[in-house]
């Protein structure tokens, strides 16, 4: 087993903070807002329709349902703004995805770790012409990076680029099959 350990100059390393990011499709915002509304209003309807006989709880049932519906509306507004801030970046050696409103998260997946890529979409996402790109690595227990909010054509282009990169990438010595 051979190993080289060339020293790196920290000043000359590519900077994650300077990675150019592209905003996701603006159609993701209404899509996310509708998803939130659907979830919370379903909960509100359930809260209203569940038969309760105990007087103090039953009296508050309607108000509880209205409260949940209002909370759902607030969550939908937040989801709208959060979706507008999402962005992704495809660099030569990695894929970045930034999301979050209150807590901002930037996920970076080195392309050499990529094992396979898949695209999927829910009926609501299809109605907005959006596709989700899911990236998996070798050691992960599930998807390692889920890139939401790409237009179908863009998602396909990114997927093809990643697949071409996977095929062109010579397997790392330790990953070479016999």
């Amino acid at each position, binding site marked *: 087993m051979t190993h080289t350990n*060339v020293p790196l100059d920290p000043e000359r390393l590519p900077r994650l903070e300077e990675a150019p990011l592209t905003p996701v499709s603006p159609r993701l915002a209404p899509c996310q807002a509708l998803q939130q509304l659907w979830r919370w209003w379903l909960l509100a309807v359930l809260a209203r329709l569940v038969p309760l006989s105990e007087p103090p709880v039953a009296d508050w049932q309607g108000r509880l349902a209205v409260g949940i519906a209002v909370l759902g509306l607030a969550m939908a507004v937040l989801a709208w703004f959060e979706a507008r801030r999402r962005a992704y970046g495809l660099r030569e050696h990695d894929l970045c995805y930034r999301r979050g409103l209150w807590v901002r998260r930037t996920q970076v997946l080195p392309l050499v770790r990529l094992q396979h890529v898949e695209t999927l979409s829910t009926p609501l996402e299809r109605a907005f012409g959006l596709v989700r790109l899911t990236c998996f690595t070798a050691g*992960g227990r599930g998807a390692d990076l889920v890139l939401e909010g790409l237009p179908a054509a863009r998602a396909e282009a990114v997927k093809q680029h990643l697949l071409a990169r996977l095929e062109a990438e010579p397997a790392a010595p330790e990953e070479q*099959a016999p």
Partner: protein
Amino acid sequence: MTRDAAGEDGLAEWQRLSPWAIGLTLMTTGVSLAREHLPLLLAAGAGLAVSDRVGLREALLGGGLLLVVALLLSLLYYRRFRFRFDADALVIQKGLFVHREFKVAAGHVQQTSVQQPAWMRPLGVVQWEVETLAGEAASISLPGIRCELAEALEARLGGAASRSGPTTTADEPPAPLERFAITPGALVLHGLTSRSLMVIAALLSPLVRPLERWLHDRLPQLDLWAWLPASPPLAVGLGLVAALAALMLLAVLAAWWRFHGYVLRDDGERQVQMSGLLHRRSLTLTLRRLQVVEWVQTGPGRALGRGYLVCHQFGAMAGGEVAEARRFLVPGLTAARADTLVPSLWPGRGASPSLTAPLQRVAGLYRRVLFLRLLLAMVAGLGLLAGVAGDGLAGLPAWSPGPVLMGLVALAAGLAHLRWRSLGWACRGDWLRVRHGLWGRRTSLFPAAHLLSLRVQQSWLQRRRGVVTLRLYLASGRLSLPFVEERVALALANRLLASVEGEATA
């Protein structure tokens, strides 16, 4: 091993399981079914109800019929199960109703396991299992093959893996070198300091209520009062000490059962461990697949200066400490001994840093955040407790909330400080070390290039204070470095990403 030599082991031809495998399959399936369903049948009385309903003779006849069907199915399973080596890939065909074929490339094997329970020894058969890069979930087992065949499989996989590796070894590999052998004293200390104590306590906890009931019913008749001390607190204290001593004894016995005669051998590009009192177990770790080494010290372990190493590979199953017992462990080590062992797990990578070398701490703001979180949780818990107690607290003096709150503040401050101090990281050369844990501590050591992906996370407060939380995703799971200065965290992230790319293109 040359190709001709490899052909001499007969593995190029289809091989079958040992005929004893039929009985072993029946027995293991029967034991597994009994373990899962017998308590339910006996405890709920369902078994008696069924036998009363259909009659004992009919129930026995039904059981006999089921046994015959199980025997026939086992025979069919045995006939369908075969395996052989095709070039450097192990091909396995099996399946009762659905025929399946598995191909395991030798270069993708990360661990093999050979197990021989006591009742298998006279028969000369073992259970052999192989784990690939897909992890434990995709491991494949040969349930009952002859010992010689298992040895040939190990040799063939080892030889093929060496050929597919980045370097070639000499024609004749050197004899395995013994790296570590556990002593009886170290085994006892491992039992006392391992997590078995807690696991055993959790397993036995359902027996507490029946035992309490039995003591309540029987104690007056047993005339044990004469033996018990007159003082109730002393009696309770002695009872607790006795329970703790019993748990410690069980934990030591569990360590002896699992790690008796533990030997770690260096077999070139593989490390082989053998252990077990009655249930002998041999694990072979392919070093090129090793991702993270973890140095674990429990609270008692830190007091007694003992710990153990856990070798993590791809695809470790969830399940925390219980699942950890199935991994490649090196038990009963002192920190100094662990430091001497770690370089042999990463051959060709140069000197790894000491597991106990000083670490860099995260920002002091994390301590304040922890303090506030803990204090809020404690005050909320206390409020809940007071709400539940209701009028029961009416008798307390009016000045009592003050000292209680002061105590909570002191406790939260102490815990927050200890937790902040326990968290640390260091990046030296191309190695990264991360330590966490309050009483028990875990130090993960890995080459920076073994990172799978990373996440930089910043809340509103963190953005204002210029700190970030760095989450590192590894084959063994996730490591978190909260509240690291933004400039430092981003420099570390950039360096890790460059290492991953650099190693892949090297």
